[in-house]
């Protein structure tokens, strides 16, 4: 009797301990985010001013200057990447959701997941071989190709997911009207899921916007404006990297500012997009 009640108390203690432990772990997991944000804001906010957004980087030794070219460069690279990633990814997702057989779909999904796991630096090498070598030089195109390849598996998966949420009744109703399949897919199925597709594309964009490794020997970086996409181009993450490992204090300050701007860009897309989807698909997604 006595041992059993002691055993019971022990079980209770263990239960409480484990609950407390898992709570602590959850706090530890989110702590780094708080720390990073805290330092970004305290160290970066001070360095952000109008010049940061409008000026080119100053040469070593001169203070001031900004990252205007890097911001424009990142947006340019995202645009180029989308030219590859969006059509391929979205249509690939349409294939998975509307056409592919079960076995083929399994392989494509599997392949997309494998591609998602390919280290980003490897995409840099691929784009180097496919674009930099033939064009005989680093270029915005090469950076765009590297990032575009990374977008494809991301967008394929999200597009498939949102298209599968479109109720079959719409497809059937449209088929029963004698509308050809491709028009149904384009103008009814994809249009119904448009918001979800756009969400997936934006999230993929946010994900690759911060990529540095694939740009190191493709886009390469540029201290000046890039006038032609065949030339090297600056990008925010590259600039942050270069400045962070430099020995100059003023550049460190700028690196923090750049990181703050980059993360604000990424978070704004993320938060905005999530607000957008929740309103629409809240019932349909888990």
């Amino acid at each position, binding site marked *: 009797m006595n041992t059993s009640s002691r055993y019971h108390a022990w079980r209770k203690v263990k239960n409480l301990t484990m609950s407390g432990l898992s709570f602590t772990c959850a706090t530890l997991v989110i702590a780094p985010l708080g720390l990073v944000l805290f330092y970004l804001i305290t160290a970066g906010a001070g360095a952000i001013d109008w010049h940061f957004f409008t000026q080119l980087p100053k040469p070593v030794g001169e203070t001031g200057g900004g990252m205007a070219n890097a911001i424009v460069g990142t947006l340019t690279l995202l645009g180029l990447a989308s030219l590859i990633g969006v059509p391929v990814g979205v249509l690939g997702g349409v294939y998975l959701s509307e056409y592919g057989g079960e076995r083929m779909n399994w392989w494509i999904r599997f392949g997309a997941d494998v591609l998602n796991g390919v280290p980003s630096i490897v995409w840099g090498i691929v784009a180097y071989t496919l674009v930099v070598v033939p064009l005989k030089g680093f270029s915005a195109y090469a950076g765009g190709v590297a990032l575009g390849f990374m977008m494809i598996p991301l967008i394929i998966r999200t597009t498939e997911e949102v298209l599968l949420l479109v109720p079959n009744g719409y497809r059937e*109703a449209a088929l029963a009207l004698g509308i050809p399949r491709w028009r149904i897919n384009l103008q009814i199925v994809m249009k119904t899921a448009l918001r979800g597709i756009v969400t997936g594309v934006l999230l993929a964009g946010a994900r690759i916007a911060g990529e540095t490794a694939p740009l190191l020997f493709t886009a390469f970086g540029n201290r000046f404006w890039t006038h032609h996409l065949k030339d090297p181009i600056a990008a925010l993450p590259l600039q942050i990297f270069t400045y962070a490992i430099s020995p100059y204090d003023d550049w460190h300050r700028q690196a923090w500012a750049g990181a703050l701007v980059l993360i604000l860009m990424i978070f704004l897309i993320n938060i905005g997009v999530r607000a957008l989807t929740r309103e629409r698909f809240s019932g349909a997604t888990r």
Partner: protein
Amino acid sequence: MNASLTVTQSKREGAAVKTKESQSLPLTRPATPGGKETTSRGTPVSEVAFEVDSLSCWFGQHQAVQDLSLQIPAKAVTAIIGPSGCGKSTFLRSLNRMHELVRGSRLRGQIRLFGENIYGPRIDPTLIRRRVGMVFQKSNPFPTMSIRENVTVGLRLNGVRNHIALEERMEKALRMAALWEEVNEHLDRPGTSLSGGQQQRLCIARALAVQPDVLLMDEPASALDPIATTKIEELIQELKKDYTIVIVTHNMQQAARCSDYTAFFYMGRLIEYDKTDKVFTNPSNKQTEDYVTGRFG
């Protein structure tokens, strides 16, 4: 003209052997004032819309419809009743080649629509579906489209650009679906903003706008309240003047109220097919009697 439709449960050659008197339908020709001889396009009027000949449908290994033969008269309402899982929806979907869209489905047999084999080798199912419209159990106006766009979608996505003609067709279709008076003030509102019954009539208008010959209805009122149901039933009475209507329903009162002919399906087979009055008041088959009197199902 031979004014009777014959129901056979076996293949065609078996029909000659086995013609029980109770299974032949004393069908009189459905009255079609003004259109008896020719339609506007000059094809001879046939009194039979669908001739179904030893039709079998499968889902994978499961046979949903078993060797079924019957004829569906034009410009009349034919109701298909039976317990759930009896193959009535599958049968309906084979009439506009929707059955084949289901994964793992198979079909054997012949269906002729006004004499033409719709499963013929060179027939485009898309064209069949334009001629045989369908209304589903769950009303499904396209959520991204306004009322106007919903009605005209079948035309627009089939290449019709002429705005005046589209407007004309839209108004006509909405009038036929008895919805025009209720929505003509706000045609640009989303189709999904309407009430359930209105949405279903919008779907009927959408199907009518492509000018089909036949309208298939798969439990069109089962998700609606009694008032909306009455409206749909009244609409069916109106529409049968111009259209061949086949309606699947699990609601026997509904079949009794609004159909001219009733077919009773059980376990994928056609058990009885006759004038609606006859099926409900004096069925010749015991199973039918049990079902219509509510003893099983």
